[in-house]
């Protein structure tokens, strides 16, 4: 009875089961990851050498724009929601998410939103070409007609994220098993609750920004049009008021994943649990007062630059606390290096590199040189690829036995890790140097002097792209014919989902609340 569920397409269309919806989110985000990745391949192929080889500059701009939008809204965010769906009910001892039907809807909006966004590539005038940050007036006065599809797409994915976030908050606040106090919750749940609050605070602001774009484009308003008394710089303020918390939306759940995996394979309790919770909360709070560090060069008064610079550098403190705690958890632990642990350790190291370049960018005086160069590209790819995406990858390897009841092939998993590790650095590390030397971002052609660094980055990108197909192969092979997993494949793993549920987790879990120690 516990495993009874409808079959065929109807199971997936009408499901309200958090595990089914979690799987659909994860598969959807992986498909988007491949689509966005394919666009990155076009970008890197064009940049393999100076001059124009494969695509014309306008199409190149469409590629950078769509790559950014698809990776942020289609790959990283849904993958985190997928993990939340699978894990949060099991980790807090709830039978399902609090609002299962809304859960179904919030997933099924996404394919339509992205179909709309991607369809703009095939329209007259091409897809949006103004960068994923869609600054006005590029996105208003000078934008292609397909921008309206982009606007409605953003509205839809925003609604989906907001519903997902509300669902997480209600689930965690109202459906914890008796005895599961807030400060006993696994860190993945904590980071997700905080992420969910960020989502409901800033996604509506993004919706407001695109609505203003829409009315500026078609209904004669002048929010961002200087001729009518508006101000294009205000667009940047509104966008980054959303945009900066957004970067923490993408990374905080990965923090949670690392905080689950590292203790499991170090066979020690997480060092400084409560400081982890407070650090995550302070990062989230600070993220609301730092937005203008993305726009130091618009001409701000010195007082403004000082404020945003200092507030930004302050974020390094709670982030430092987290990194310290992860390292202290590993300190003198009996560590083993299975694939999830490898990805988690690489996450800590490489995310920290991305954090450091972030501190460099936070300094207003030097940012004048770094602004809009490849250094910025290197920075945010270091926090997003080996940060958010390695975090998700680690989570998939770690919980795959719980989800499927099968073990992945450890040898192939490790191969996937080392290949990714090599190529991710080969792709993004040279960008630091080309950026510091002055190569601007979002250009299809560049000065000869940047040729070597770009060639390295392109080779790295092709390898990195291919190695993700290996990941796909490993996951499919595990589902189809992996070895049967034990109920507790990781001896150091703790938490309700490992201690009280078999592998694979039955379709319905915790119909009666578990006992929490």
């Amino acid at each position, binding site marked *: 009875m516990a495993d009874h569920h409808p079959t065929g397409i109807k199971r997936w269309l009408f499901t309200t089961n958090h595990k089914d919806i979690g799987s659909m989110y994860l598969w959807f985000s992986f498909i988007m990851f491949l689509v966005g990745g394919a666009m990155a391949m076009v970008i890197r192929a064009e940049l393999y050498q100076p001059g124009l080889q494969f695509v014309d500059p306008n199409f190149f701009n469409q590629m950078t724009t769509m790559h950014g939008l698809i990776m942020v809204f289609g790959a990283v965010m849904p993958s985190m929601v997928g993990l939340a769906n699978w894990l949060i009910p099991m980790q807090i001892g709830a039978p399902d998410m*609090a*609002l299962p039907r809304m859960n179904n809807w919030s997933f099924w909006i996404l394919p339509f939103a992205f179909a709309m966004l991607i369809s703009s590539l095939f329209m007259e005038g091409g897809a949006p070409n103004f960068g994923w940050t869609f600054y006005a007036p590029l996105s208003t006065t000078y934008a292609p007609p397909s921008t309206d599809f982009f606007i409605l797409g953003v509205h839809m994915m925003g609604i989906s994220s*907001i519903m997902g976030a*509300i669902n997480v*908050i*209600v689930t965690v*606040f*109202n*459906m914890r098993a008796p005895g599961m106090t807030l400060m006993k919750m696994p860190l993945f749940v904590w980071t997700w609750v905080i992420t969910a609050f960020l989502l*409901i*605070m*800033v*996604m*509506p*602001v993004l*919706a*407001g*920004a695109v609505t*203003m774009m829409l009315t500026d484009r078609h209904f*004669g308003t002048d*929010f961002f049009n*200087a*001729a*009518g*008394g508006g*101000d294009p*710089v*205000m667009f940047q*303020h*509104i966008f980054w*008021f959303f945009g900066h918390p957004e970067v923490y939306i993408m990374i905080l759940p990965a923090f949670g994943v690392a905080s689950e995996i590292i203790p499991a394979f170090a066979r020690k309790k997480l060092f400084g649990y409560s400081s982890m919770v407070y650090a995550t909360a302070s990062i989230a709070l600070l993220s609301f007062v730092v937005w203008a560090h993305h726009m130091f060069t618009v*001409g*701000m*008064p010195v007082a*403004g630059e000082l404020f945003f610079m200092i507030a930004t550098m302050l974020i390094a403190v709670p982030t430092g606390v987290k990194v310290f705690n992860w390292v202290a958890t590993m300190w003198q632990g009996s560590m083993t290096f299975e694939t999830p642990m490898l990805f988690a350790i690489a996450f800590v190291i490489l995310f920290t590199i991305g954090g450091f370049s972030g501190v460099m960018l936070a300094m207003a005086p030097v940012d004048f040189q770094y602004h809009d160069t490849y250094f910025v590209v290197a920075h945010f790819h270091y926090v997003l690829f080996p940060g958010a995406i390695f975090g998700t990858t680690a989570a998939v390897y770690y919980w795959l036995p719980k989800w499927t009841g099968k073990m992945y092939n450890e040898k192939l998993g490790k191969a996937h890790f080392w290949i990714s590790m090599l190529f991710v650095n080969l792709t993004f590390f040279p960008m630091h140097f080309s950026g510091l030397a002055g190569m601007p971002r979002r250009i299809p052609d560049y000065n000869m002097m940047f040729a070597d660094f770009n060639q390295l980055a392109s080779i790295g990108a092709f390898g990195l792209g291919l190695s993700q197909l290996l990941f796909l192969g490993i996951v499919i092979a595990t589902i189809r014919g992996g070895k049967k997993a034990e109920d507790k494949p990781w001896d150091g793993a703790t938490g309700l989902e490992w201690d009280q549920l078999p592998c694979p987790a039955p379709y319905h879990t915790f119909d009666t609340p578990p006992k929490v120690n």
Partner: protein
Amino acid sequence: MSETEQNQANKKLIVRLVGIVGGMFLFAFALVPLYDVFCEITGINGKTRGKAIYQSVEVNKQREVTVEFITDINRGMPWEFKSLVKSIKVHPGELNEVKFYAKNTSRKDIIGQTVPSISPGEGALYLNKTECFCFDQQRLAAGEEVEMPMKFYVDSEIPDDITHLTLSYKLFNVTDAVEVASGATK
């Protein structure tokens, strides 16, 4: 918790969370006036204020401030537009007049709107205009040319470290927007 209690607790929480979502959506629009108010109080984005009324005050003959004028024309605006004076030195407190020149070089009537901006941004608080073409829109017939006066004074409170003010005007073509608006009211 029983099921109904659970449902009620959920509903209460959902209403609050949806309230936050709605509030933040409105907040995005509230940012627009807030932004203007903030910039006007602090004068940080170089937006000049509206019409000022000149009160004769003691002119500070000891100080000189150089005021420079820049003009620039937006894409798709077939006008000539320039300042007849590139820069003048003024004493804080005294009323000055400069002239700008505009000519419609196209073959149809066009309505133009200039948007002023001052650099450094803090200077916007101290440059007061008593008369300016930028307060209104200009309609020029095909080939028509015009000299437009602008009267201003620099506030005697201007901080010592500001020795130069650059007043820039950007000229926009607003013909379509004006005609759409008046068509709508007809």
